């Protein structure tokens, strides 16, 4: 036993007890955040899982458990898979076109071109607009007598005028364009943040070594943005698959099931068909699919690193 420690032992013990008490007491500060998380995030998830096994109609608190019937019905529903396929098309188009445009814009703005501060603001305006408003604006643009057809006629391409969202050939792509127009600003900001994190010295060193613009882009910019790509891609896939507002405002999934997307189907089951059980089952299936997709994307990017 250390004789020096003897007279101090009770004091140390008391101090450590006080510290422990204070530590536990400090946990109370986290309680409001925990309560909010529990009420607004955890509880709805738990209830969604619960409802997915029931025939709940959204109003009556008395419902019956139906086992896996809703899941069986969801997984064998051809329209659901068509909606997922449409979501996949949105995701693919966004990954290819939207993110490429966003990357090019961010590289251009990061290159200190004149007015880059203004561009930064302008490119970020669409993401802060309401999706419904964007949907209605584009619906007006695509109208048979709208601005797009008027423009085509004005430049002598009257033969290409079209009922853009009223035709099965173009409706899906027309909605995708409006969605990408709104989403490009989000990817742009993330890419720009990633670009600004690359040390300038690397470019200076490359210049000394005689690297041209393309080489700098290929050997410095692109590899340095790998983690940003992963995040942008995950967000793009989740956003594109979860698209709702534009489809709701522009086509309601039509013509037929041409622009039907998972979120619209979930909404229709809940609020048109009053089948919250089925709607919850679709939500869970969809949530699991998105979770798996995100995991795969993360895993792939880690393997590359």
């Amino acid at each position: 036993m250390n004789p020096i420690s003897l007279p101090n032992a009770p004091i140390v013990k008391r101090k450590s007890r006080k510290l422990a008490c204070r530590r536990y007491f400090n946990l109370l500060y986290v309680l409001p955040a925990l309560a909010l998380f529990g009420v607004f995030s955890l509880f709805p998830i738990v209830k969604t899982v619960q409802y997915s096994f029931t025939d709940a109609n959204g109003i009556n608190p008395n419902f019956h458990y139906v086992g896996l019937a809703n899941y069986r019905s969801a997984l064998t529903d051809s329209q659901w898979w068509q909606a997922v396929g449409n979501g996949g098309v949105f995701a693919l188009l966004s990954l290819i076109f939207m993110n490429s445009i966003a990357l090019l814009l961010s590289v251009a703005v990061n290159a200190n071109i004149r007015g880059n501060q203004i561009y930064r603001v302008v490119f970020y305006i669409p993401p802060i607009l309401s999706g419904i408003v964007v949907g209605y604006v584009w619906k007006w643009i695509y109208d048979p007598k709208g601005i797009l057809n008027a423009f085509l006629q004005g430049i002598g391409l009257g033969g290409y005028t079209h009922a853009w969202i009223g035709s099965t050939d173009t409706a899906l792509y027309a909605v995708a364009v409006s969605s990408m127009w709104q989403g490009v600003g989000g990817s742009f900001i993330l890419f720009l943040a990633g670009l600004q994190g690359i040390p300038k010295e690397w470019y200076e060193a490359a210049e000394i070594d005689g690297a041209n613009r393309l080489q700098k882009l290929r050997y410095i910019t692109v590899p340095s943005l790998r983690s940003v790509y992963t995040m942008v891609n995950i967000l793009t896939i989740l956003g594109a698959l979860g698209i709702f507002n534009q489809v709701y405002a522009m086509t309601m999934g039509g013509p037929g099931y041409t622009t039907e997307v998972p979120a619209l189907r979930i909404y229709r089951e809940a609020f048109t068909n009053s089948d919250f059980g089925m709607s919850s089952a679709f939500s869970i299936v969809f949530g699991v699919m998105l979770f798996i997709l995100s995991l795969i994307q993360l895993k792939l990017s880690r393997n590359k690193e």
Partner: protein
Amino acid sequence: MIERRKPGWLSLLVLALILAIAAGCASGQNESASQNNGGSPSPSDRTDSQKKTGEKIVFWHYLNDRHDLLVGMANDFKSQTGIEVDVQLFGGDGFKQKIIASAQTNSLPDLMTYFGGAGDLAKLIETKSVMELGGKMGDTFKKFPESVVKAYSYREGNPFNVKDYGTYAVPMDTNNMQFIYNKDLFAQAGITEPPQTWEQLLQAVDKLNAAGITPFATGIGSWVIGPMAAPYEFAYLGEEKLIRVKEGKEPLIGSGYENVLKIFEDLYKHKAFAEGIATMDLPKAEQMFVNGEVAMIFDGSWAIGVFNQMDPNFQHYDVFMPPKPADAAHEVKITGGIGVPLVVSQKTKHQDAVLKFVDYLVAKEQQQKYAEKSFNLPANMEAAKSEGEMSSALRNFSLGMQHVYESAGIYPSPNVDTAMQKGVQLIVIGQSTPDKVLKQMDEALQKALKEKK
């Protein structure tokens, strides 16, 4: 030395906040409602009401075009009774969802205009969220046509399995859906009379096309397909068979339902539709009609008010019943009934006041004023009969009330209706056929019947 901190006032604040939230979540139950004797506010009632200073009821509605009118009526009601009515407008498509969410959380307003069919209201009855009014307002219901009252009445054997029989909504106005045509454009195409038969309608379409006029538009992209198909469901199948087919007691394929879908194909083949019809909503079609871009629209009687709002000078139009096809064996019946149903919350603490206000809204004077200002058909028969200066279109809509069906039956799952709507959206652009759509509807019906078993 360990620094001794001041007492944790912040912690106390956090605790107080948590307790406040907990207390808020556990708010007390509603008080039991008092009984009401119904009828209009009598002088003695007024005195009683005026004594209850500060009595206030909350009224939710979705009628963008009638908000000022309702606020004005609420103010008049307050000056007569002393009861304040807080008229709150929630326009747009989200009104139904708002009602559902409020019912889930027991926070429905005292009074609301209901948005949805009898099946939707049945769910609120099941949870005892809304009040049975037949027993409390018997005299009031005598003011309305019987068929209108029946729209939200649930009797033994009702298809919605409502066990608490009764009447749950008071009609503020009535409506029905028919074809509306532009007289000038018809004259321009050399059409002198509105079509009486389906064949005449197709001839009119051809004449309009020949004159370079787009014949027809409606909200094919939204909910209008069902009401537009309904007259032909009755015409081809007849009421009894239609109900049996929808319930799955008779097969859908071979029932004659394909003829119903063929009317949309006929219109497509005769190039009747405006461009972009497959995803067109009703407001867009209404705008085109008012602008003179299309000659006909399938719309409800409320459209008269909408047209007036869009262009008060646009008056040269009239109404005709959905024309019957020559090969249809039964009478055409149209969609209609209560335009705006008034529904009372079961949990209201101001039952007397709410029922007085409902009575006030459907009294003859208010109904006349309502019809005059909003261009909607009054539900009160006395008010409807006393309409002297009714336009031809409004009169034809009024006459249409005689042809409104009581029940068109319901499929065991709304997915069958969805299959039809989605299918028709493709038929009208030549991307599908009645046979294909009928098969898809049958698949949805068989699936629903299997799940029901």
